[in-house]
């Protein structure tokens, strides 16, 4: 069994507004943990003594240690293909020279990564931190010179600080741990991957399990001391087949939760996987989309959350453009601040402070981000208008402070603005029935024999379960081989005409776990056309006969 350690113990939570560093005594919570103790001790030493002739002393230092214990398992065709347990600890050190206005966070000055020991040995950790700090400081000194030289070649239209001021945070949460009994799920995965026995035409059935428990430690020279932990439990079943004409068809089913006890029962997982593979059988026999279609489409379930993730989520991150570039951010909303980006009945927030939505757990919940800044709810799009961005400690024009969204994908990466729980809401929600009725009404208005409902999509919003809904009797017909022609931010702004009331929740256990919440979305005009893709040949000879 996997569990959070001592989740019932009252969480020690102190948010100090005072500046802690500079006081010689260690915060009490840190002194019981050899990792935090090593970090704080070495931080104090670096802060007090690190100085190279001819180079200014660092104005800011941070240490991030990421301790990940992972259990991975893969099965295909009813048998194990890979199994791995790996416990690793990474150190990342950032030293900044210069000042908040202009500093060394540039090229090699963006931090240094080392593999650290997994044993809680204070001396060995300090030794690694000592060397990493030294190298990071020297790299920072060189980076500042390089940055100043680069800036001399450029005209800066809007001078923006390099680093935001932030209040120190002290937060020490219980450690999370992976229980060895996690491996009990391997048997279930093997059984699910044996489903190919029921359908000889399935070309591949792969199941994957990835359970990780991550403890994050963060200490900076401003007095922040943070230890937080989180787990991700992911089950995945993916299958592929070829239709009679050679078209490749894929489906996958996954469960991603933050707590072991929230995983489905094995029976439920099997049932879900079976449904998905069953749908693959139906897809194989489904007709191919031949004619181009322009008209209303209803996006339901993960088809809606995917489109929100790709066309809104990617663009509300306040990422500072490259040196000297005048835009506010990168991405499609770089110059859309205070402009309309969605219809005025839709609003979008990012709220990492909540852990559930309509009773379902959200993976994008965290208390403190990877810059050691307290997470906050951010209003991103208000009544269709772009009013904010997710921000880390790297300011952008008009946004001088972090809002607690600085998150790092992997232990070796620097942090940057990223999503937590992205929530899209409608001020005029329609029930699913009303939404469907509206779809049919739009179709009738346009004299269309049928319109489309998409219930699930794959990578790049490619439809996996796309249905024609016939206007005369409302019956649905599954089709395959389609793609959406013009799905972009302009479509989102101009062509969404209604949204549902019940939200679909998609938990994304990616390198930065986050969640997307969105109701069904009705587009009044979108293109559906045949996918431009080669059809592979069917295998040259039949699959081997199965034994008993």
């Amino acid at each position, binding site marked *: 069994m996997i569990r959070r350690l001592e989740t019932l113990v009252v969480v020690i939570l102190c948010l100090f507004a005072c500046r802690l560093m500079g006081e010689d005594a260690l915060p009490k919570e840190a002194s019981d943990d050899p990792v935090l103790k090593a970090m704080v001790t070495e931080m104090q030493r670096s802060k007090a003594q690190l100085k190279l002739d001819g180079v200014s002393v660092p104005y800011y230092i941070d240490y991030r240690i990421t301790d990940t214990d992972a259990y991975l398992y893969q099965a295909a065709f009813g048998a194990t293909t890979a199994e791995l347990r790996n*416990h690793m600890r990474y150190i990342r050190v950032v030293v900044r020279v210069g000042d908040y206005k202009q500093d060394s966070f540039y090229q090699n000055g963006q931090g240094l990564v080392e593999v650290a020991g997994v044993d809680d040995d204070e001396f*060995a950790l300090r030794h690694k931190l*000592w060397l990493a700090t030294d190298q990071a400081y020297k790299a920072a000194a060189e980076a500042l010179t390089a940055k100043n030289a680069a800036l001399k070649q450029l005209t800066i239209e809007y001078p923006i600080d390099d680093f935001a001021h932030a209040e120190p945070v002290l937060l020490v949460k219980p450690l999370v741990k992976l229980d060895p009994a996690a491996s009990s799920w391997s048997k279930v995965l093997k059984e699910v991957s044996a489903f190919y026995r029921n359908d000889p035409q399935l070309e591949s059935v792969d199941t994957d399990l990835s359970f990780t428990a991550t403890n994050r430690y963060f200490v900076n020279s401003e007095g922040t001391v943070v230890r937080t932990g989180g787990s991700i439990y992911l089950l995945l079943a993916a299958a592929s087949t070829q239709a009679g004409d050679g078209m490749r068809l894929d489906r996958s089913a996954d469960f991603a939760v933050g707590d072991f006890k929230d995983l489905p029962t094995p029976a439920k997982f099997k049932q879900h996987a079976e449904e998905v593979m069953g749908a693959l059988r139906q897809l194989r026999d489904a007709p191919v989309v031949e004619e181009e279609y322009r008209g209303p489409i209803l996006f339901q379930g993960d088809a809606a959350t995917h489109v929100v993730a790709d066309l809104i989520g990617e663009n509300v991150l306040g990422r500072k453009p490259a040196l000297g570039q005048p835009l506010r951010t990168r991405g499609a909303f770089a110059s859309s601040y205070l402009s309309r980006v969605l219809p005025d009945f839709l609003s979008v927030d990012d709220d990492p402070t909540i852990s559930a939505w309509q009773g379902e757990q959200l993976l994008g919940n965290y208390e403190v981000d990877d810059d050691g800044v307290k997470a906050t709810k951010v209003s991103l799009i208000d009544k269709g208008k772009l009013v904010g961005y997710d921000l880390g400690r790297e300011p952008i024009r008009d946004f001088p402070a972090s809002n607690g969204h600085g998150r790092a994908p992997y232990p070796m990466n620097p942090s940057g603005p990223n999503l937590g729980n992205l929530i899209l809401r409608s001020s005029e929600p329609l029930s699913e029935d009303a939404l469907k009725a509206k779809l049919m009404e739009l179709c009738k208005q346009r004299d269309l024999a049928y319109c489309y409902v998409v219930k699930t999509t794959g990578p790049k919003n490619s439809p996996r379960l796309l249905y024609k809904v016939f206007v005369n009797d409302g019956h649905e017909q599954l089709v395959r081989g389609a793609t959406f022609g013009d799905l972009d931010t302009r479509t989102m702004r101009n062509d969404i005409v209604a949204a549902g009331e019940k939200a679909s929740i998609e938990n994304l256990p990616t390198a930065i776990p986050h969640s997307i919440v969105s109701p069904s979305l009705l587009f009044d005009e979108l293109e559906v056309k045949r996918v431009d893709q080669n059809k592979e040949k069917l295998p040259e000879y039949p699959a081997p006969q199965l034994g008993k």
Partner: protein
Amino acid sequence: MNKSLLPFFSGSALVICFLVTCTSAVSAADPKPKDILLTTMQQELQRATTELGKLTPAPYFLSYEVRDQSYAIAVGGDGVLLSSMRARRRAADVITHVGTPALDNSHENSRSSAIHSGALATDDDPDAIARELWRMTYQGYRNAAKAYLNVKTQTAVNAKEEDTSADFSQEKSQVHLDYKEPVSPPDQAKLESLARKYSGRFRNYPFIYSSAVVISCEAGQTHLVNSEGTRVVYPSQLVRLAIQAQTRADDGMDLVRVETFQADSIAKLPGEKEISARIDKMASDLKALRAATVAEPFDGPALLSGRAAAVFFHEVLGHRLEGQRQRGETEGRTFAKKIGEKVLPDFLTVSDDPTQRNLGATDLSGWYEYDDEGLPAQRVDLIQNGVLSNYLLARMPIAGFSHSNGHGRSQPGFIPVGRQGNLIVSSSRTVADSELRKQLLEEVKKKNKPYGLYFEDIEGGFTLTQSRAPQAFQILPVMVWKVYADGRPDELVRGVDIVGTPLTAMNGILMTGDTTAVFDGVCGAESGSVPVAAVAPAMLFSEIEVQKRGHMLNRPPILPPPDLPAAGRGQGGQQ
């Protein structure tokens, strides 16, 4: 292609990443183990041969090689565990030759079209294994068939190649079935404790900035079947202990010492006492190197220790005697067309003998029973009394050599090519090792130089063999001494590399010592990393060229290392 021989990893960042499978305990209840993997491979190969044989173009050769490997790895640094992993995988390579042996899809630059790789189930589940092999086979066939059509067109369009040998040799089929129940690698806790213990010894030496101890055990079994009827199954085991320590001189030069030990079981590794002594020696070498002066470029007499000479021969000669380097327009072909000619001084003889398991008490890592094309390992006499007589050959023929000599080697996922196993250099002009130093001094005086160089130990090296690159090599020595003609004590220097061109360098060898040394390492080239050994006596060169090694100008750390708690010191070390 750039080839390199390193006893260990290079660089300081250490990330070990395998996506592989944990070894599960094997039931010993069944007295007659059944080789389900072999049976399944044979059945599926038979089916593929029949079914694909009906197509045009049809494959004329198919083979499946499956390497079942169980690993246990523990990495320590500063007395703590950096990483610990236990894993198992079955790596499968499907080889497909379409066309005819005279001209097929593997011709010239499209060699890689002959291989399709993947992972098989680690459970002995015949259905899962067969299904995956089937998928890999038809996908491999598609690549091969497409490449074959291109090859045919290119051959018709291009001018005639210099070497018109066939693309694939005809060989006798082999049957060797030595199936053993898979063995689990040793107890993980034991490996972890060794990694902690040995790396902790460096805590006694604060001037050593970073250290790493990697202990890895690999227990494996190879299965190979092909459409010519070959069925070969054999187990393998390898334990490797690698120790690396690093410091930095005041001028910013990074200094690294590496020691490796290998054997076929943990019990056969040297004991704690010997390893601790080697660690202490690494530390004292590094301390001396920090204080050593940086050597100046030099061209003159030099003495290479046996280990240094062994690496020299591996890089400078061995790689250039690989069969595939004699054929193909992109290769430098240093030794092509030199059969029967004198290429070395006549007192030197060189062979490659993968059948030799050890030399005295030292295991030779280039030992193997069968190569990765299912052919038995063979001793090959490459150079006899200075005259070139053979090459290291896989199943790719070259002018005058139409058969493999059992040197087709690869790591999983790569197509086998001619590689070294145990390269052994012997000499008929020897003097006692103690006499070599005197001879060096005489040579120095004769050349009117103030000093000669003694290369005591090397880290590794690399060599360039492609035609568009200069035919040069670089050897990375680590312990180099100036030996003065005027009788001053020898002086340790740092920061030089041996450079040069092969034929010139090797013809300056004057004599050798009378004992041989072994360099066990891992060699990387186009067919991946394979374990190799090189064996040679110490050698006196009339002329060796060294150049200054470029290095970063990083200062040593600004702050002193953190204080070591008194209880944290290792046992018995010295500062």
